[in-house]
């Protein structure tokens, strides 16, 4: 059982998606219960995997028992385990929140949601670059449908842009894969890394071209500067629980960049080009997003721009390439993902009590539950801006310490400036929502219990990340160290005992699966 555990984050959502999609006739209540139960199970599975990976052990799982580098392998290291855990925790909050009524505005919400989880988990686990493409596509297809959930002009318009951009991005992804396959003759990431390290001349130039194309594609997913213009509109028009889940979608791009950068291109000519590109566009993203935050006249785009600030910060940190910077990045990652997610949910709660004004930053009727919402908003705002009691401040401190030399000169002012503009924008939004209101009757739209549970589940992460800052930053540091040593992965996967062990212990399965494949 234990050795198959690694495939569960993919199989479990696939199974639950099938169950949920095929039981279309069942009541909404049943769907919600099933969906929450499955997602809770997923959280447990990913926590087990997190525990397994925390020891520093690398786990490989050869699908169909075709050995690497010829077959597709799943690979679990600290980074993938962290991303899996983060996704599952975020997803549980979103599913609970959606169960308050957002899920019945269109059809098949829960099934699609599980499919998206399957795509995300698969992308985090796979060790094969073409398989990464396939899981990206699964994620994207589910996200298209989820984005359009409930319909409406705004969503269809934003969805059209999002879909066309991503289809074009997929074409670019395939071209990059073609170039890399042509140059290296393999699709397994570890094997590719091994071959890239020894290349020179024309082949190396081809690899550099392929690498940069890949980075462009991943930057599109991560929403880096020249490629982020789709994000604010898409995220602000998506249904709240979906927008909250989308907070992890940009991190999928970041994950892919970290993965290919550390595993494949760490020793190649492409490395310096990638780092330069990431550094400058990361910084420019921070700057423009900070302006966007100040300029937003609605809470949803404001939060979308806050997502962009975090993307810029994370990618600038990723480009520094030092262990300390990666540690800071990995500590910041869960915090910012969960906080941005919860902000979308809180925006929805605020919007539903303000009648026609929605989340626009204008005077409107008084909120029905202004103390509750004000408290939640305050906590989330403190978290997202990065003020002291919560984890954002620690993460930024770590990051600023990690920047050295001339990097410091650029990163410090921009990071602090972005924090300041986020602070100004959030205070302005809070004052408008909670103080600048008309006297008189209050709008309806009470916060329901599932909504509150979902929000608190996600919001609770912020203090927990501070309380357990020690172990978590140790984990982040260990992850960064593991990422810095791709040789270990290459050695263990391609020429060492562990994979062979797996073959022997799974001999009976071998014949079956081979029969199926052929």
């Amino acid at each position, binding site marked *: 059982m234990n050795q198959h555990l690694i495939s569960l984050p993919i199989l479990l959502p696939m199974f639950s998606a099938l169950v949920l999609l095929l039981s279309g006739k069942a009541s909404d209540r049943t769907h919600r219960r099933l969906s929450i139960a499955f997602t809770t199970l997923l959280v447990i599975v990913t926590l087990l995997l997190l525990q397994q990976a925390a020891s520093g052990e690398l786990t490989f799982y050869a699908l169909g028992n075709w050995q690497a580098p010829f077959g597709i392998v799943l690979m679990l290291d600290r980074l993938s385990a962290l991303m899996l855990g983060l996704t599952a925790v975020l997803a549980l909050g979103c599913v609970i929140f959606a169960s308050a009524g957002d899920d019945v505005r269109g059809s098949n919400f829960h099934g699609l949601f599980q499919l998206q989880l399957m795509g995300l988990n698969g992308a985090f686990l796979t060790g094969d670059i*073409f398989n990464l493409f*396939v899981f990206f*596509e699964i994620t994207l*297809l589910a996200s*298209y449908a989820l984005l*359009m959930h409930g*319909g*409406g*002009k705004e969503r*269809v*318009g934003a*969805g*059209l*842009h999002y*879909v*066309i951009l991503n*289809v*074009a991005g*997929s*074409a670019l992804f*395939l*071209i990059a*894969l*073609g*170039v890399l*396959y*042509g140059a290296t003759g393999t*699709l397994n990431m570890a094997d590719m890394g091994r071959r890239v390290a020894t290349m020179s001349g024309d082949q190396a130039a081809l690899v550099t071209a392929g690498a940069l194309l890949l980075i462009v594609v991943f930057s599109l997913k991560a929403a880096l500067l020249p490629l982020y213009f789709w994000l604010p509109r898409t995220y602000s028009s998506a249904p709240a629980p979906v927008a909250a889940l989308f907070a992890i979608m940009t991190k999928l791009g970041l994950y892919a960049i970290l993965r290919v950068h550390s595993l494949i291109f760490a020793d190649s000519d492409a490395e310096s080009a990638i780092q330069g590109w990431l550094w400058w566009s990361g910084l420019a993203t921070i700057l423009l997003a900070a302006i966007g935050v100040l300029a937003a006249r609605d809470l949803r785009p404001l939060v979308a721009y806050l997502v962009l600030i975090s993307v810029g910060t994370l990618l600038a940190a990723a480009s520094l390439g030092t262990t300390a910077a990666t540690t800071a990045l990995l500590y910041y990652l869960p915090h910012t993902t969960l906080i941005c997610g919860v902000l979308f949910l809180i925006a929805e709660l605020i919007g539903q009590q303000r009648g026609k004004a929605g989340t626009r930053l204008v005077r409107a009727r008084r909120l029905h539950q202004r103390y509750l919402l004000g408290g939640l908003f305050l906590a989330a705002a403190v978290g997202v801006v990065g003020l002291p009691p919560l984890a954002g401040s620690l993460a930024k401190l770590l990051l600023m310490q990690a920047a050295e030399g001339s990097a410091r000169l650029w990163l410090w002012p921009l990071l602090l400036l972005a924090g300041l503009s986020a602070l100004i924008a959030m205070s302005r939004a809070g004052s408008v929502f909670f103080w600048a209101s008309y006297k008189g009757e209050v709008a309806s739209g009470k916060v329901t219990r599932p909504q509150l549970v979902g929000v608190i589940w996600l919001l609770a992460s912020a203090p927990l990340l501070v309380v357990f800052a020690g172990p978590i930053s140790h984990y982040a540091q260990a992850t960064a160290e593991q990422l810095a040593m791709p040789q270990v992965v290459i050695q263990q996967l391609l020429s060492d005992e562990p994979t062979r062990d797996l073959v022997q212990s799974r001999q009976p399965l071998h014949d079956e699966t081979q029969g199926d494949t052929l």
Partner: protein
Amino acid sequence: MEALFSLVVGVLTASGIYLLLRGRTFPVIVGLALLGYAVNLFLFSTGGLNTHAAAVIGDSITPTDPLPQALVLTAIVIGFAMTAFVVILAIRARGDLGSDHVDGQQGEDGDAPR
């Protein structure tokens, strides 16, 4: 053959990108389809272009690389699904937004009245 092949891929890509930058959804979708074809052909060529070579190792003396063919198959399936989805979405957008323009705005030569 290499020259012809690369020329075809290049022309397809160029036309695809040109159409992709148009303002109406229909040319954009055709552009995406052309780009998809170009990508599939390109992927197909990544294993090297061999004539009279089967993709099965063992039966022919000079087998060709079977992997790109598997990749192309996957890419075709995914591309097909995506194109179908975009077409439906474009029709939906036409209905909801009252315009065939990608920005949902009234085009220069007049769309259906809103």
